[in-house]
């Protein structure tokens, strides 16, 4: 891969990821502020969430991050590049599983008559997990683009775009990080 270090990505990738993290930090701070104002309500509503499903999604995302990391690792050496494809497929399956669990969780809440307007806790629960889910779908699209790009690069023996690989993988790890903060904030603090 030329003279550049394998994981070297344009500094801009980090700028965008840090920008995203700053926006989520703003959301978390707002959540903690409102939580402090009506702590009993937040405790009571938070207790109704399924910690099992939350934990399941945490494990799924950690697994997906492992797949992404091993895929990027495989890309470091030209003759191992082919191995990155099944790892990317694994990460995409984890992403799809996360979405499925989330849809099941939302569906159950709706059937129990709980929605985004029920109280302040549920407003944050649905908005924050919804915004995270939206980002996750974008992240899956990026991983998919990376897989397609890699497949055509393998077919023509061309170089793999470091910016695409760097951005997609960093973005995915960021999604994992955000969920690892969201999970205790929403599911465990009560």
């Amino acid at each position, binding site marked *: 891969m030329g003279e550049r270090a394998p994981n070297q990505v344009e500094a*801009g990738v980090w*700028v*965008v990821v840090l*920008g*995203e993290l*700053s*926006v989520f930090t*703003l*959301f978390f701070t*707002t959540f903690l502020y*409102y939580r402090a104002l009506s702590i009993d309500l937040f405790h009571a509503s938070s207790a109704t969430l399924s910690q099992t499903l939350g934990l399941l999604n945490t494990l799924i995302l950690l697994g997906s991050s492992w797949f992404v990391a091993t895929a990027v690792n495989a890309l470091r050496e030209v003759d191992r590049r082919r191995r990155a494809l099944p790892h990317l497929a694994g990460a995409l399956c984890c992403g799809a599983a996360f979405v499925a669990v989330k849809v099941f969780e939302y569906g159950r809440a709706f059937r129990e008559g709980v929605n*985004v*307007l029920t109280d*302040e806790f549920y*407003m944050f629960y649905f*908005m924050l997990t919804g*915004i995270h889910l939206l980002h996750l779908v974008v992240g899956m699209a990026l991983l998919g683009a990376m897989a397609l790009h890699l497949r055509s690069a393998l077919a023509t023996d061309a170089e793999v775009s470091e910016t695409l690989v760097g951005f997609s993988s960093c973005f995915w790890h960021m999604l994992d990080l955000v969920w690892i903060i969201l999970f205790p904030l929403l599911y465990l603090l009560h």
Partner: protein
Amino acid sequence: MSTTQPASNLCPRQRSSHRIAVWCGTLFTIGLPLGWGILASFLLPPISPSATPQEVAAFVTEGGILQKLGLMMALACVGGLLPMSAVLGDQMRRMEGARPIWAQTQLACATLTVWLVSAALVFFAAAAFRADRNPELIQLLNDLGWLTFITPVSMIVFWMCAVGAAILSDRGEPSVMPRWVGYLSIWAALLSAPGFAAVLFHNGPFAWSGLLALWIPLLIFIVWWITLTVYLLKAIREEAGISER
């Protein structure tokens, strides 16, 4: 000078017009918060979406002539966005080269923003126009005004992303604007996005009077606009310098 940048042809006369057009944008960024926000007191503090019809009617009645003057001032100033976005589009064309799609997106988004902000202001003006009408109708106009102002974030987000995309795609040497302005634009787009949820809430940070739907997007828009003003003036200066060489 790199070959990717088209030859500059900004003569001194055009340079003055471009400068004046950039300063027109300041009319919007100062006139809207000052007229609508402070004189018409829509930001001092913003009326809550959970306010009763009587409270909304009282707000409009107490606003009196000053509120109408503030709205008139804001309505007169919003158009200032258009000349500035023309200069922005012109500079974006230098960044993008021969087929500038982001520059065109940018101009369309700026035009629609002027249209929607004007529409919101007209709804508020209609409420103030007959402040003695049925309070529930006043509340309806107030709702329409706020929702028109806060919720159509889509074109603001695309606008900021288009500017960011053009700046980041600039491969000229020297670049028309620094790359961090491109990243700032994308970050501003992210921070402006939560406004769409104001349709749902009567309280809290995502409601039209809340931190995430109103204050942060308003603040980041002003920061973005000031940055663009500074760097547009710089780009015009540098372009004129190049053509004089």
